[in-house]
């Protein structure tokens, strides 16, 4: 087996649902050894989320859980028992990284706060992903992905002007905070290489939205009074920047440069209306005549399927693209040639395709070595082989509700 980029790195995940699991998935898929701690019996919430085969609920068959937990080892541990706390501490002593997404108050109550854990392992990097961060007036507020996206600025840009703003689909907030957490944790590893010390990495899901995603435009709001405008299928900037129907679906039309728009009209046979004085300046078009322009463009688009249009656009270097649905992407020859979707065999679920590598590293590639763990699958391996417990200890701890 080819050595992977993060081989040898030991990570403990004390997380739940999406953000911390996505963070440690990125690490595990690059070769880190991730031990995922789950609550005995109930396990990770994502196990109850779905999608399930034929919609039938089963805690070993949730698609989201299977996707977010590839390449990890799974153990059960009840950290609310004294013995569970002791085991948690033993795991921490041997780890490089702890990733968690619990409310700050819960972590403090358990005695798993960074200053305490640092005493056990000064090299430990502890990464905490929360809705609002470890400081600030909203620190202990409750929020889900919907709420952090709303506060962080992602929501007010999407939807129709008069109707409710639309949050990004499928809980994007958690992917964003998870990916940022993985990146920031790597930074802390480099710090540790130079000074030998671990530290606490504080990831606020709201901050991730409000800064790297939406902090750049705030200046325009303050000094020029700009607002985030929801314009439905459009961005009001230059025309075209919109999504319009064609014969069999939707096309994404965007031309920042004038020549891109010209080439499109040319490819459509230079319709007479392009000479109309309303359509000479594309900024004026965007602000004043977008509805009229849409109607005329749609009339052209309806003559073609989206793949026919994509062909025309690619041949003429026009920057438009088809809006592909999930089935089309899953069967797209591009993704196929790059080996993006990978097939995994797993107990309870059998062979199934999953989304694969978000990036390709030439020498230490993304790899799928094992599917998501069943609940407590690696108890024996971790407790007996790594921490030195006997098999009869496991039976006793199970009875006592510790694991």
């Amino acid at each position, binding site marked *: 087996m080819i050595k992977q980029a993060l081989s040898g790195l030991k990570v403990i995940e004390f997380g739940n649902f999406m953000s911390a699991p996505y963070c440690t998935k990125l690490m595990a898929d690059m070769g880190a050894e991730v031990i995922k701690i789950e609550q005995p019996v109930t396990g990770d919430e994502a196990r109850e989320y779905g999608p399930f085969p034929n919609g039938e609920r089963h805690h070993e068959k949730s698609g989201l859980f299977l996707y977010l937990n590839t390449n990890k080892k799974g153990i059960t541990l009840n950290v609310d028992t004294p013995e569970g706390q002791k085991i948690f501490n033993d795991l921490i002593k041997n780890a490089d990284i702890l990733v968690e997404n619990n409310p700050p108050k819960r972590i403090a109550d358990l005695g798993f706060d960074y200053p305490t854990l640092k005493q056990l392992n000064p090299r430990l990097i502890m990464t905490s992903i929360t809705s609002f961060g470890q400081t600030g007036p909203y620190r202990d507020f409750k929020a889900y992905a919907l709420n952090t996206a709303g506060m962080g*600025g992602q929501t007010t840009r999407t939807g129709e002007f008069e109707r409710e703003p639309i949050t990004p689909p499928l809980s994007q907030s958690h992917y964003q905070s998870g990916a940022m957490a993985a990146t920031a944790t790597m930074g802390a590893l480099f710090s540790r290489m130079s000074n030998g010390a671990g*530290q606490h990495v504080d990831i606020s899901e709201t901050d991730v939205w409000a800064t790297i995603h939406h902090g750049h435009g705030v200046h325009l709001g303050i000094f020029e009074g700009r607002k985030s405008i929801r314009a439905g299928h459009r961005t009001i900037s230059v025309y075209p920047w919109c999504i319009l129907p064609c014969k069999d679906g939707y096309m994404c039309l965007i031309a920042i440069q004038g020549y891109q728009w010209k080439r499109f009209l040319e490819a459509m046979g230079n319709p007479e209306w392009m000479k109309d004085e309303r359509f000479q300046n594309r900024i004026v078009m965007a602000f004043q005549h977008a509805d009229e322009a849409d109607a005329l463009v749609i009339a052209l688009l309806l003559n073609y399927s989206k793949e026919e249009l994509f062909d025309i656009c690619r041949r003429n270097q026009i920057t438009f693209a088809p809006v592909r649905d999930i089935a089309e992407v899953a069967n797209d020859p591009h993704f196929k040639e790059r080996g993006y979707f990978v097939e995994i065999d797993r107990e309870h679920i059998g062979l199934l395709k999953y989304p694969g590598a978000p990036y390709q590293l030439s020498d230490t590639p993304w790899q799928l070595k094992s599917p998501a763990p069943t609940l407590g699958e690696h108890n024996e391996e971790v407790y007996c082989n790594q921490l030195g417990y006997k098999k009869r200890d496991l039976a006793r701890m199970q009875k006592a509700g510790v694991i």
Partner: protein
Amino acid sequence: MVRYPLESFRVIDFSWVWAGPLLGEILADMGAEVIKVETNKRLDSARLTPGRSTEGPETDFIFHSINRNKLGVTIDMTTEKGFELIKELIRISDVALDNFSPKGLKRLGLDYEMLSEINPKLVQVSLPAAGQYGPLSDIVTYAPSLGALCGYSSMVGYPGERVLGEQTPYLDVTSSIHGAFAVLAALYSREQTGKGQRIDIAQIEVGASVIGEAFMEYFMNNKVLGTQGNRIRNMAPHNNYPCQGDSGWISIAIKTEEEWRNFCEATGNPQWATDERFKDVASRLKNQDELDKLVASWTKEHMDYEIMELLQKAGVAAIPCLDLTERFSNPHLESREAHLHVEHPATGMDIIAGIGFKYSDTPCEVRRPAPMLGQDNEYVIGELLGKSKEEIAQLVEEKVLY
């Protein structure tokens, strides 16, 4: 003494516009020496956004925000001497970053075979729309096309209605964050192996990776998820609701039965909790349209922050949806330094994005504003590459440093 996480690393950044520069920004915020290579012959179009850069290429706030902490050189690498300088920079760099198309990269002579020969320890990362190979690898796109091609946009719209699609550079930013992780993993690996490598990022594959749930649904059940609106599988209410007057929209999400009871109690509508239609999450999901109307009838009578305070006290997740200026004046975001005031020689003062991660011990901060064109030519060409003042003057004269 090393203070910043990546202080000992040098990045040569050839990238443009959003995704590439933001990846460079993350590394720069962590303390890497990121050298942005530009040329007056063809400016980064982010310096020239219509409506923002009315006073020339040094005044675009967004450019300033996504390029802070970087050094700037102007080298015309299409000249022979310019290309030699690039090669010398590659020799002393740890990372080379670009978002050219595979063809463009070859044309400029920056393909990995060439660069790794000059510097085998180099990590080269490229993040074009569709990667270095595959049938789509030559496409030219803007951010919204990425959402269209990876399936993401097909899910953006009101449930059961037409596709509205992602209008923001959401997937560019997502690619930057993932890309930065891949670069740091490759650098970490280099500590063990001593070898650099090539990282090929297709932004549309990063896009597919953050909608994993939709693909799992398709592969499991052959079911294609369409426009999602504000719906989620396991929660109701789960929506953005209108507030009193013009005070905006409030996001409310309720997962547990306890939250639901608390919500009904706190809003003065205990009868909702016992209503057959809303008795458990399955019922609430089934009757979500009616439920949303009821919730909205209550939220419309109250101001956004007032609702937040009331419901948070009751343990219910309620947070206003904030616009640009509303975020700027939000006390929590202010305490988290989500926006920073930075002096810039051309504009006086910019408000730029804060840093999206915090360390307990190592500082991450804005150490310098975004570079003016060619601002660091002397340091980079003189000090790092050891050219004399006369040589530099000659290179300027010949429009190599341009």
